């Protein structure tokens, strides 16, 4: 599998279909590696310990200046690439995916191809069982207990914004927390600002999150951020049949509407 990935990457560089391959390095922790020479493709690797969503790099100006690029992409990252395409964040034809899964190299795809691959091979990606169990466990608690749970968790947040940096969906050049006239979200690492920050960041991903888990993996304080994402994912699916990352021309859930949307909670 590794051989196929490396050969495909080298070929893309040779044929100048990509000037840079963003992949996982053959080192402990599987950090990102940037390969621009075909002969360096031996540094690329993929296995289940790869935690970063490399699509996040596509928001970085230094890398956007080096298109076309190819990105090593397990299914969640493929979905991110499709979401970014649907949201017009990827210039047409400038990003290719080196699709991987567990121990297989699946080929080179553009956004449309990646979406097709996802639809045929991974049609129902959603929160993993363990994550759904975490959600279920929390949902069983009373409202007061849930409030106490999150107050305690968010109190740990230092506002380092590692979650935002990890997320391909967080590509705003000026984040809501950086807007200061007025300052809607307190930048102090205290209860109120931490709550608003984490809740709003999750909400801004609703219907867009591909459940890659990079935010939670990146959080130095171990906040259970994926619980927020999973609840929104399930709700968006149930209410609006939202399947982010399966259609490069799909409309975002927030930002589109249907007259038939449920509103039984409205009085």
């Amino acid at each position, binding site marked *: 599998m590794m051989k196929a990935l490396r050969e495909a990457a080298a070929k893309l560089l040779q044929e100048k279909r990509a000037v840079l391959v963003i992949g996982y390095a053959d080192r402990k922790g599987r*950090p*990102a590696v940037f390969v621009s020479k075909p002969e360096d493709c031996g540094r690329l690797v993929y296995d289940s310990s790869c935690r970063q969503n490399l699509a996040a790099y596509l928001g970085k100006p*230094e890398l956007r200046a080096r298109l076309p690029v190819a990105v090593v992409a397990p299914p969640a990252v493929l979905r991110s690439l499709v979401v970014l395409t649907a949201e017009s964040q990827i210039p047409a034809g400038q990003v290719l995916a080196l699709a991987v899964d567990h121990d297989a190299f699946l080929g080179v795809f553009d956004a449309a191809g990646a979406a097709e691959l996802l639809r045929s091979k991974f049609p129902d990606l959603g929160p993993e069982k363990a994550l759904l169990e975490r959600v279920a466990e929390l949902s069983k608690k009373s409202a007061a207990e849930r409030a106490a749970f999150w107050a305690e968790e968010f109190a740990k947040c230092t506002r380092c914004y590692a979650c935002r940096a990890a997320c391909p969906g967080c590509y705003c050049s000026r984040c809501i927390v950086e807007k200061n006239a007025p300052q809607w979200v307190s930048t102090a690492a205290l209860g109120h600002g931490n709550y608003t920050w984490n809740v709003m960041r999750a909400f801004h991903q609703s219907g867009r999150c591909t459940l890659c888990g990079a935010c939670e993996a990146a959080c130095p304080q171990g906040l259970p951020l994926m619980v927020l994402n999973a609840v929104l994912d399930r709700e968006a699916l149930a209410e609006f049949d939202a399947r982010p990352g399966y259609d490069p021309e799909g409309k975002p859930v927030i930002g589109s509407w249907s007259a038939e949307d449920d509103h039984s909670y409205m009085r």
Partner: protein
Amino acid sequence: MKTIAIDRLPDLAQALSKAGYRVVAPVDEGGVVRLREWTKGLALALDAVPVNSVKDVLFPRSEVVARFALEESGGFTPAPLERSAPKTVVLCARPCDAAALSALDAVFNWDYRDGSYNARRAATTVVSLACFKADEHCFCTSVNGAPDGTAGADALLRPADGGKKLVFEALSDKGRQLEAMVSDGQAVPDAPAALKRRFDSAAVGRWLASNFESPFWKEAALACLGCGACAYACPVCHCFDLQDESDKKECRRLRNWDSCGFGLFTLHASGHNPRPDQSARWRQRVTHKFSIYPQKFKTFACTGCGRCARLCQAGMAIAETCERIEALGR
């Protein structure tokens, strides 16, 4: 010789608590070891380097530095500020945490003296725990430190008798005040963790001083995603922002941690940004720690604790950058 059985540490914490100290100690909170206020019943987590450092005690991540009472007419009057500096013992800090204190003391006291920092510093006693093991991210020996280093600490707990006991060594008056709480005993100190020096920090500093425009930076910072995890975890990083927050009645002027890794950190009102990309910001981080700080304050702004690398989602490791810089300088 003062000794304590390692499993009696909670008793020492309890004794300190009874003696009127706020005790801050490493506690495992759902898999994340954090220095936090210790309360009775909490176990001390001694195996991992905590995600935060003694810095948090002296320089909290958000702190009110000025208050104003707001009037309905739009006016204001300055309100008194209570300085919070509770008598504190940090129990089982790391030698690399304690070593950071001289670097923090320097910046908070060159010329202008920061009263709230100094008040907490004076009220805080740091009891380090010598490291009996090091991980792949540790590099204190490359920045003039040691796994059993005493710099900055008021007392050192040294593992002994194969890790069963700790020898208590007072290093300052503040440390000696705690001696009475530890009983006399005998123990054979264990060898501290062996840690090979990874790079020559002075050589790194020399290269940095004259290679500001090196193409090395563009490539070295490619992986950096520009979050503040490294700076916030760092025991020395102390950059901050001042922000006003107010409700109808009161304005609080807050000092919040900030990071040179953020794009907005240096952005001018005109739109000009002296550090327009992540390579300039990473260069600032490394240069500040190994060149600017030594020039200005005669100490590195890095103690080799490895927290930044341990927590970096993108695998950026400052020690690795230094190793490469040392190689470039050869």
